[in-house]
Structures are given as C-alpha cells and as structure tokens.
C-alpha cells in the first residue's frame, strides 16, 4: 500500500492547488509520501505522477536528484553526522568512528533491528556548534562521544519519541490556508495585468 491514503490525497490536492503549475508540488508530495511509507516506492511515484500530471519516470527523475528521498527502507532513526570543514575541525571523524562502534555498523548501514541508519552528511548549517548531527533532520549540537551514547540509548528506549518522530516526518506543523483568506494561485498565462496595488497610491 504505497499510494497516498485518502487523508493524504486530500492534503495533496490542497498543496497542488497552491501552485500556478501542479508539478511544482512534486517535492512536497514526495515528502508526504515518504512520511506515509518511510521511503519512496514505485507505486508511490506512479500515484504522484497521476496527481500532478507527469509520468512516473519524471517523478523518479526529480526524486532521484535529492538526497533526502530514499528508495529503500531506512532505519526508524536516520543519524546524519556532519563531516564538512567546521565539524571536521572539531572532531567529526572521531564522532563518526565512535558511532560506528557503538551501533556496530559502518556509515551507510542500518542496524539489523531496523532502528538506526548511520550516514555521513554535509554541512548542516550549525557550524558554530560543531560537531553536529541530526536525527531525522533534528539537531544535536556540540556532540561528545558520551552525548552520542546517551542519545542512542534513549532513542532505543523510546525516551525521545516526542522530540524525534520516525524517519519521513519532517515538519510536525503544516501550512494551512483558509479559503476565505487565500488569494489563490493562477497559471501565469491567466494573469495579464499589474497587481491592484501598483496604482501609484498608498494601499492603506
């Protein structure tokens, strides 16, 4: 079952309607699909293609460009350890070694119980707080090997379920635009005039 479920189809339609062209919704919809299934399946791409009006090959073409989309299952917790310069200067390599030992897997691997995937990552925009890591794209900063041990133990014991939703869930809050407040998207060819407020007068 990897087509979007009914609730998500409704959400998908709302998202698509916000853009002047449906294909623009593709990346948000791929995220929605990954949130539902944990990764992107063939059937999901077929379905998303139907929703935005492109072939599943085009969906795959887009999806495969982006690192966050996974085409096979990953652990419930994806641990991304940053290895770019600022973190490398502050001990990222030692941290990665430590993580590999602690989890008993190499970077790129998943623990046999399917709980953790460990990966090298590039700069996470937290460079002043090096070394950094993300669990499902949520931060831990200035991470010591001890911090890492505790983090992994707590994740495994389910003590951090509130802070770290399972892989696939990004923002826990969605944008929602009330119909009464929305301007609404129009295809560019349907707009031929200057916006109303460019009449040379103050808007208020």
């Amino acid at each position: 079952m990897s087509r979007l479920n009914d609730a998500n189809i409704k959400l998908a339609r709302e998202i698509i309607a916000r853009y002047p062209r449906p294909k623009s919704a593709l990346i948000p919809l791929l995220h929605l699909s990954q949130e539902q299934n944990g990764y992107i399946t063939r059937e999901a791409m077929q379905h998303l293609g139907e929703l935005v009006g492109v072939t599943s090959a085009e969906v795959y073409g887009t999806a495969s460009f982006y690192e966050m989309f996974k085409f096979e299952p990953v652990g419930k917790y994806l641990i991304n350890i940053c290895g770019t310069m600022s973190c490398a200067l502050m001990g990222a390599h030692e941290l990665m070694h430590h993580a590999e030992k602690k989890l008993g897997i190499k970077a790129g691997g998943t623990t046999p119980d399917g709980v953790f995937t460990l990966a090298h990552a590039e700069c996470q925009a937290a460079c002043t707080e090096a070394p950094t890591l993300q669990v499902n794209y949520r931060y831990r900063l200035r991470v010591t090997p001890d911090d890492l041990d505790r983090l992994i133990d707590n994740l495994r014991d389910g003590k951090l379920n509130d802070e770290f939703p399972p892989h696939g869930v990004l923002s826990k809050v969605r944008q929602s635009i009330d119909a009464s407040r929305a301007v609404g998207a129009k295809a560019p060819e349907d707009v031929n005039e200057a916006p109303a407020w460019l009449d040379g007068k103050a808007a208020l």
Partner: protein
Amino acid sequence: MSKTYVHAPGFVAGDRPKIVTSRFEFADSFTLERYLATDGYKGLRAALSRPANEIHEDVKSATVLGRGGAGFPAGTKWGLTPQQVWPRYLVVNGDESEPGTYKDRLLMERDPHQLIEGCLIACYAAGLSQCFLYIRGEMALAQERVATALNEAYAAGYVGKNILGSKFSVDIILHWGAGAYVVGEETALIESLEGNRGMPRLKPPFFPAANGLYGQPTIVNNVETLANLPWLLTHGVAAYTAIGTKTSPGTRMVAVSGHVKRPGVYEIINGTTTFRDLLYGEEFCGGIRNGNALKAFVPGGGSAPWFTPDQLDLPFEASQVGPAGSMLGSGAVMVMDETTDIPAAALTLTHFYAHESCGKCTPCREGGTWLERILRRVVNGEGTDADLQQLLEVGAMICPGAFPHAANEKLGLSAVPFPYKMTTICFVGPSAYAPVHSALTLFRSEFEARVKKRVTIPVTVVANETANVGASA
C-alpha cells in the same frame, strides 16, 4: 514574559545595534504575540501607507545588499524586471547550505514573522503577486516555525487576501527542498520549485529577474536580505544608513566556526568591523582556542579563497576584500589554528563541492572528482610531486587564468584579486578548486612534506571518512 537572555544555539549576545537579531533574546521570539509586542508588522503598515514605488525607492537608497553570497543590492535587482510583464514572483532563498554558513536557519527558527513581514514588503514594493518561501529540506524545526507563523499571520490578516484590509493581496507559500546544495543557486532553486531536478540554468538568458519561475520575472532574495526590510521600513532609510558605511550599510550576520574560543553567530556592523575584531574581540570570539596561533581562515563560506593572519585587518567590505583576493560571500568565517592539517582541511571542502556537483558541466563533474581523488591521495600520503602540479592543471581547466589568492608577506606573494574566470555554468566547479588552490599556494610545504613521506611513513588517514558518502548520495 521577562526579557531574560536565552542562549540560542550559535547566538552570542552583545551590545551592538541589532537589525535582524533584536528578538533573539526572548525565549518566545518566534510567536506572533512577541512579534507584535516588539514593533512587529509596523514596517508593513508603514509601507502600505505609501505608494509601492516609494517603498522600492527606499530600499534602493538604503542600499540593502544581498546577503546570499553575491552582495547585489536588493533594490537594484527589483528594478531589473521587464516593464509590464505579469505576473512576477518572489522566491525566498532559505536553502542555506554553503559550508560554514549559519544565519538564515536562525532567522527562520527564531524570528519567522520578521521574515514574513520582509517578504510582504518586497512583494508590495516590487509588484510581486505570489511568494514562495523555499526552506532547506533538512531543517525540520525551521519548517515548523515558519509554518506556524504563516498560519498565525494568515489568520490575523497579515498575509493573503486584502492584507490589513487594504488592496494589497499576496499569498506566501511554504515550500521545502529535499537535500541538494546546488539548489541554493537561484536558477537551480527555480528549477526545483518547478518540480524538476535542481540543475542551474544558463545565464543568459535565464536571469531570474527577467526569465525565472515559469518563465516569468522572478526576484530571488536571501532570507537575511528580506529580514532587514521590516526594520528599514519601521526606522527609515536614514537610521539604516547611519549604521555601517556608505557602500556597506547596516549590519550583517556572520557565523564564526572552527578554532576560536567562542564560536557563534554575530550580527556585526557592516563595512567597519574587521576580521581581527571578530576573531579576537572580547565581545565576539575572544581569540583562538587555547591561546594557539591563527594559521588561516576562510572569510566567506567554503567557496571563498583563504586568508592568513596577514589579512586580519580587512573590514567586512566587499570593495576591499575582493582586491585582497577573496569574497565575503555568505557571512561564514571558518578558523584554523596552528594544529590544523591544511591538506586534510582543504579536502573536506573539495569533497563537498565534488559531491554536490549536479553533473551538468564537464569541468565541474569530472574536474571536481579528479581534484578530490588526487587530493585524497596526497592527504593519505600516497601522492607524488606530479600530483601537486596535476591539481593546478585540473583547476586551470575549471578556472582558466590566474586564480584569486591573498597576499602573503612571508612567501613574497602579492594578491590576485577576485573574481576568477570559469568554464562552468555555476560556482560549484570553481568552489571545488578554491580550497585546493588556496591551500597549495599558501601552505605548499605541507603538501610537499606529505608527498615525500609516502614511501617510508604510513600516514594515518585523517579525512578518508568523508569518502564514504554512499549512504547519503
């Protein structure tokens, strides 16, 4: 709530003028309530009380420089859209992923309403009828905070139809990426927003202001650039230009990372603050860790040619940093002390850009990979003298001619000014070369030592780990 200082990761307080970080001291800085209690949406009201073209003029005369990397004045950019072509769009660049750069994420997480207000002012002034706010995919909290703020702002009548009861109507659509550095490049950002692979377009003809999203005039601005606008409109052009210098007015956020005592994100005065102030000043980083000596620093994000202590007295002023051989880029200073293994440090950056190449141009796709492989060989102690020459030759295929570098008294080098020539569509290719070139030019002896060591001493593999990117590739 009391005005207690809360340590935002990366942010260090100080008594300087604050244009974009003024609310960071509040624990609830991201809420509409706090925003409204601290001048929130006043700039919007001030803007809407005057004709749109006057607001555009204000932004032009304030010389609000782009904070995304190129430093192009926002008001001038808005004026480059062709006359009478509609609709026009605003795309907000919140893809922050240049190595060392950390400011837009803070602005989105800690003051999302300020960004939203900035977007509204830009749309009003430049006649942009829909706004897409593109946040980097790997930033879950920023997405959450901006989504919440947008929901609040829509409900309160600040965004959407007939804003504040006026004839000004604009939607702001939250969009988010999925992990690809090159998508931060503005034409790639537009491709990505159209639902495609995020590969840069050829400029010309695709200058976004003329031919951008769906082929329409499109303004792409960085998060920090837009975050300046509410303050500008609230306090006026004179107050804005009173800070900083004529060519670099206002403030800018700079992330200082690496081997300093107090790494952090600082809002500094533009144009006058020097690298020495920032790295050694007590109100900023307080010096190099453990009292060590400074070896080198990257002044403007991973793409920028490196500086050494010789350049410490340069101010944050593009017209001085450019001729000195580098760029201010995205406000990211990475500091290396005397203990740094320079070739290995350069490798982390070259690896980054080689890995992030979109593959569209041969010199970047092939050249970047070559540079990385050769450099890795050298770092691992398996390189030969010929490899050092080879690095420069491959680099010259990406950037023909003299490549910018800093002056160095000890080495008897004079500066080669920024920018460089390039054979690629965007700056990713040259950026793979910049760290190699800087490191080899300024610290050649460290490379030569590596090369000689190879037969007798097995060198520990310092940076080999970054080679294994299979999982995230």
